[in-house]
């Protein structure tokens, strides 16, 4: 499959007199082979690294998921799809799926709109804009584990900072057990995730907003569109590709959530904040049910894959529509 992106620069550069026809054909074939060898030679290190440490382990997990296996020696106790049937009757794992969905929905409904609102605010000329931008984004560069430990202490029941402050301003009712209470643990987790990650999404949106041509919003202004109409009908459609990327990253983040949960609750109390990655870790590294844990890995992989493919298809279709309805093609 030779691509049409680039002309083959390595042919037809001979400055000497043209050699006889058969010789020329032979030397062209040789040159093409050489070209292929050079090109793939440059790919070799990346390919070895990627195959060996990304693809190969994944394939092995797929294999190990069909065995009852403690993780030592080679798997030998073949049990067919038993790990998978057990997985989909495992209440903790079903809960993981539910909690993943809850986090995704909360992100889409609360975190991303909030990030978008902040991006729109900070896209205006105003004093202190750079400082706010830097401050909102700063938590993104912190380690998730370190952030988690910090908030675990801030939300410590009773003597933590959060409860103390709420008590001081007379809002004791709002305080509580935070991470320690099954009914609030997910909300607390989501609060910390928003603190850490909304700035990242805001930065994406700001980059997208900067690419919106000023003439378009000005034209809408002249046509008598109000601020909301300008945002809804001009800015938002032009921002759509950025929004879709941000949603995608948000979902992938929810699927693989581990560090934050592990250092704050380790999945507790009583599994109420457990995620797929935490369950996998528990079975794979604490209980030595490696076959079962592999099945969890495979299902996580499957969910990512199905989501990515479905999403790409959806994104692709929408972007093609966008190209015809919003003149995105002319934008740049």
């Amino acid at each position: 499959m030779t691509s049409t992106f680039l002309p083959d620069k390595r042919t037809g550069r001979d400055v000497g007199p043209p050699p006889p026809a058969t010789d020329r054909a032979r030397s062209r074939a040789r040159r093409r082979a050489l070209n292929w060898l050079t090109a793939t030679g440059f790919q070799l290190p990346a390919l070895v690294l990627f195959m060996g440490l990304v693809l190969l382990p994944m394939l092995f997990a797929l294999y190990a998921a069909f065995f009852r296996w403690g993780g030592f020696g080679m798997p030998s106790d073949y049990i067919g799809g038993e790990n998978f049937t057990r997985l989909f009757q495992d209440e903790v794992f079903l809960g993981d799926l539910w909690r993943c969905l809850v986090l995704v929905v909360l992100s889409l409904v609360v975190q991303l709109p909030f990030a978008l609102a902040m991006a729109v605010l900070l896209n205006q000329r105003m004093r202190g804009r750079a400082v706010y931008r830097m401050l909102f984004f700063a938590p993104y560069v912190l380690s998730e584990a370190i952030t988690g430990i910090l908030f675990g202490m801030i939300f410590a029941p009773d003597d933590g900072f959060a409860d103390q402050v709420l008590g001081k301003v007379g809002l004791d009712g709002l305080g509580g057990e935070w991470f320690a209470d099954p009914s609030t643990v997910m909300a607390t987790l989501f609060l910390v995730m928003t603190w850490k990650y909304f700035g990242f999404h805001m930065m994406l949106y700001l980059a997208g907003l900067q690419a919106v041509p000023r003439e378009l919003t000005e034209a809408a202004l002249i046509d008598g569109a109000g601020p909301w109409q300008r945002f809804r009908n001009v800015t938002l459609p032009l921002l759509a590709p950025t929004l879709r990327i941000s949603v995608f990253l948000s979902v992938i983040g929810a699927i693989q959530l581990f560090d934050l949960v592990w250092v704050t609750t380790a999945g507790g109390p009583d599994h109420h904040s457990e995620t797929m990655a935490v369950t996998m870790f528990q079975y794979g590294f604490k209980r030595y049910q490696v076959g079962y844990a592999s099945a969890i890995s495979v299902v996580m992989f499957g969910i990512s894959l199905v989501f990515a493919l479905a999403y790409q298809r959806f994104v692709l279709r929408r972007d093609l529509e966008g190209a015809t309805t919003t003149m995105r093609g002319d934008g740049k």
Partner: protein
Amino acid sequence: MTHSRTSRRGRNLPLHLVLVLVGAVMAVPLLYAALSGFKTTDELSRNPVGLPESWVTSNYTQILGSGDFWRLIGNSTLIAVGTTVLVVAVSALSAFSFARFAFRGREVLFTLFTMGLMFPFAVAALPLFLLLRSLGLLDNPLGVILPQAAFGLPMTIIILRGFFRQIPGELEEAATLDGCSSFGFFWRVLLPMARPALGTVSVLAVVTSWNNFFLPLLVFTEAQWWTLPIGVQQYQGQYSAEYAKVFAYLVLAMVPALAFYSVAERQLVGGLTAGATKG
């Protein structure tokens, strides 16, 4: 003129209030931790919210005076540098080939790499651990460096390929006429020109490696190799009753990342937005 100006400021006032409020929510946890580090644990339980009665520096100085903290910093640095050098070098070669050659199988290969972008690390963690164990790479910095580099490939290749494509083809022809080989062009012409892009992907790789928790948690059982996030978690477990000390530790552990961010903000934000829009 002045009238319209004041009215504009008046209209912006609610917006400023919102920003100040959000800014406070962002900053207060960090400031609170920093202040708490200057208290004793006793004072912290008596006076959790206010300024320290007397500024105690011993929490901070004790940590800075211990070899443990600096060993964590050293390990994290070693692993971040190793990962970055490896992933950038390998990705640059690959991106060069993707951007400047037309060859059979190119699009298939590129799709393979971009697929890697979609799969979270947590998915491969368990089988990766088994592989590293069988290779004898547990409790070895390479056990973290190699997988981190492998998982960093897709994003790095995509960003670099986009950059390499923008460099005009005439330049390569000129270099070839001057007797430059493909690798010579890559090494002597393309890489120096791509310095900004290399900076961007390097910053991304450093930050990702510095903050990684899951992989070092799996690979390093010996304290000798712990990285900063693991060390912080262990410290918190060990001194869980001495809040003030843990806060001081957390603050010191955050300083390198925040300092790096303040220096490399442009590359980091540029790289993240480029990665997101081109991915």
